[in-house]
């Protein structure tokens, strides 16, 4: 009789796979012991404390949320809905301006190498954030379903995509001028997908949504962004060296 492996036991613990496991546990003492050991560990995880919230917690959350809900905003406040998006574009422009100014002013020798590394790291962080925002938007779009009328309103994502497009162009041009072809190529792929989202109809049918998802999948952009994100983390964790990081 072959024994159950750990994966089967984990799936059984969470009720994901029960076929045959229960019978086996009834007959096999070794697997039963293994399962009890797993149970003890996973049950002990439940002891992790979470800080208690006060009695007025819900009211406090509501006060904060209510003040920021889009429908209650006047003209001046509506501007703030766009503020994070505008800020992202402005940040991209600032980071790139600082990067290019630093390159223009850079002297050929001496401790400036360290400054250039700092600048390039700042740019790396900014590109990482940009990719993460793009990834979040694309994952949300990929997971969205159409409503009862068979239509999906993607106007929120389109506004985000338009803003991301602007930052993307700036970051791509900077990557090209810094000679970082890998980053430039990823940003070029991302640009194509962002363009698709920005220029799609804002109310999409199930078919149109499927087509858009297919285009996102065909580009493999989510996978590429995830891989790049892990590489960015590794490069950030690595001690500074003489080579450029972007």
């Amino acid at each position: 009789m072959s024994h159950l492996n750990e994966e089967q036991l984990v799936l059984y613990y969470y009720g994901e796979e029960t076929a045959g496991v229960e019978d086996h546990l009834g007959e096999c003492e070794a697997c039963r012991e293994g399962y009890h050991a797993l149970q003890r560990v996973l049950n002990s995880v439940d002891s992790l404390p979470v800080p208690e919230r006060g009695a007025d917690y819900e009211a406090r959350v509501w006060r904060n949320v209510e003040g920021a809900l889009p429908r209650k905003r006047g003209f001046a406040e509506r501007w703030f809905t766009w503020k994070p998006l505008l800020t992202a574009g402005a940040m991209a422009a600032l980071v790139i301006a600082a990067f290019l100014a630093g390159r223009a002013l850079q002297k050929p020798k001496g401790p400036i190498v360290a400054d250039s590394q700092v600048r390039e790291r700042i740019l790396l962080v900014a590109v990482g954030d940009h990719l993460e925002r793009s990834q979040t938007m694309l994952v949300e779009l990929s997971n969205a379903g159409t409503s009862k009328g068979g239509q999906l309103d993607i106007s929120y994502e389109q506004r985000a995509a338009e803003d991301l497009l602007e930052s993307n162009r700036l970051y791509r041009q900077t990557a090209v001028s810094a000679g970082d072809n890998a980053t430039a190529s990823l940003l070029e792929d991302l640009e194509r997908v962002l363009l698709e989202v920005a220029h799609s109809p804002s109310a999409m049918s199930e078919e149109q949504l499927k087509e858009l998802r297919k285009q996102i999948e065909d580009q493999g952009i989510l996978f590429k962004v995830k891989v790049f994100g892990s590489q960015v983390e590794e490069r950030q964790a690595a001690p500074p060296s003489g080579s450029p990081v972007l």
Partner: protein
Amino acid sequence: MEDSDHVAVARVRAGDEDAYRLLVDRHSRSVFRLAFRMTGNEQDSEDVVQETFLRAYKQLHRWEARSSFSTWLYRIAANYSLDLVRRRKRHGEVAMAESAGPEDDAVQALPSTAPGPDRLLFSGRVQECVASTLNELSQQERTAFVLRHFEGQSIEEISAALGLSGNAAKHSIFRAVQKLRRALEPLVNTAS
């Protein structure tokens, strides 16, 4: 609760913004618990709660009535927590340093019939070990594990929430369990 969530969402969609308060009242504590298990940081968890309800409001037209509102809400919270922790890591901040929260408060909150000092000491060590092991998991492992273990979401729901294949979601959970097992087994076995 799910039925009344459906009613509340229908009211919000019909323009009754105050009905959204009902959803905030029902779910803010559980979203906070999820966020704290994901980020390990109290302040970040507060930010996650607020941002989750704002994002959910803006995307309420996307929620499909055949699915559970709380599962959909947790998906938004988990993704935002994930972004937040990644961003903190990238910016070199240590967001998870608070780990399991104020232990002193937890001890003070115990009733007078609490277990004896040995048991408390042991339980404190287990909590500490759980918190530090969770902090050592990759963000994907931690998110998948928290959603499966604490929130009871299925592997299918987790893979949809994180944009992963079913196998990748499953393996993230397995790796998380293996790491927890390596760290906790010696401790919990001494007690049994």
